[in-house]
């Protein structure tokens, strides 16, 4: 069975740099203040794994987790 990825934004760490939204718009949403949270349940659809890792490695606040399930 292949592994599935899930992304999660720690709301206490996110400061709204919005890098994740720019790099992986399918996986993240912004609230009215521009702070990010994962779209839906955070499960990464097949084909978007690279974008999930890219979002994580560009978050200046280290607020994004990519969980391998």
């Amino acid at each position, binding site marked *: 069975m292949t592994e599935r990825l899930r992304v999660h934004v720690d709301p206490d760490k996110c*400061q709204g*740099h*919005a890098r994740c*939204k720019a790099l992986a718009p399918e996986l993240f949403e912004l609230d009215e*203040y521009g702070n990010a949270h994962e779209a839906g349940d955070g499960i990464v659809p097949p084909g978007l794994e690279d974008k999930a890792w890219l979002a994580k*490695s560009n978050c200046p*606040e280290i607020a994004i987790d990519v969980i391998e399930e």
Partner: protein
Amino acid sequence: MSDVNQPVAHPPVTDWINDFDHTDPQWTEDPFPIWDELRAASPVVHTERFLGCYMPTTYEAVREIANDTEHFSSRRIIVRDVRPEVARNAAPPITSDPPVHKPAKQLLLPPFTPDAMKKLEPRMRAICNELIDGFLADGKVDAAARYSKYIPVRAIAHMLGIPESDSDLFINWIHMILELGIKDESKLLEAVHEMSAYFSAHIEERKNKPTDDLISYLMNARDKEGHPLEDSHVLGSLRLLLIAGIDTTWSAIGSSLWHLAKTPADRERLIAEPALIPTAVEELLRAYSPVTMAREVVKETTISGCPVKAGNMVLLSFPAANRDPKMFPDADKVVIDRRENRHAAFGLGIHRCVGSNLARMEMQVALEEWLKRIPDFALDPAGTVTWSQGTVRGPRQLPFLLGKAM
């Protein structure tokens, strides 16, 4: 007793590690080797100048300080020779600490989301093209004075609802506050006074005739108890938006064009692959971060193993952090397709720049429109590039030759 208005002379620096000075001409001209020297010496260095000031030299030390609002206050955010009285509502939220900071910040965030910036984009493209129309036929231009300077000032004027034609007035105040004001308090106070009078008049106007702009937005804002903001808070925030939004992005656009003028390979690649421009913008922000902030130490602590004492200022150099090779491989090279880039150009922690989405949009649009119309350009060997001094670093004179005939 010395006259407080007398600018202090700064002797040239001979010992950077124990006597650094970010206003020294050598730092202004080429700070990168200085930062490398300081970083190799210690994660935190100290100078007796500016009535005592530390500087964290590593990305990690900068992050520690940015995230520690208990020991490091934002009530003073510029390292100066003088420590003028701290005004209440100086420029919230940038000069605010918790718990006052969060509500003040949340008030400013909604008008600056990426979606809000998308609506501004057509106006920005038009401004860039108007500016290019003004000099393209000349075959040469000072790109700092005629292009990068006017993009952010007209953008923020447009958002605030004040005349874009007042741009030169704003630019002069900012020069007095951020450059001359470091060593000459009277210039600082004069500019702050003029600026307050200007905005007060605009606030008064809107009391009778509300408008659809940021000034009216702030006047209509309500705190948690439903009270309108005090006039001093509205004024402070307007001052902040104007000061923070102009020479910062002016510098970032200027440094980006300066890099592209002397790096034809990067220029050609961005023309061939315009989709790479947003990634390149991040790398240019990392390599040539314009903004250095400050904190005041309010309680003794330890940063990266170094003791830090209350009463000193801290020069919080995001630009130096962004050149830390421990954080960024090939930190001293511009890698326009760098994939992993946690740069701190817009700060880290609760004081992340409110205008970061605006700045990014302005930089992308400014580079896209320039490269579309001026694919070939180079530094003019007959001219001199000059850099601003102090808190915000960018080219203030950027002589280019334009077109194939260079």
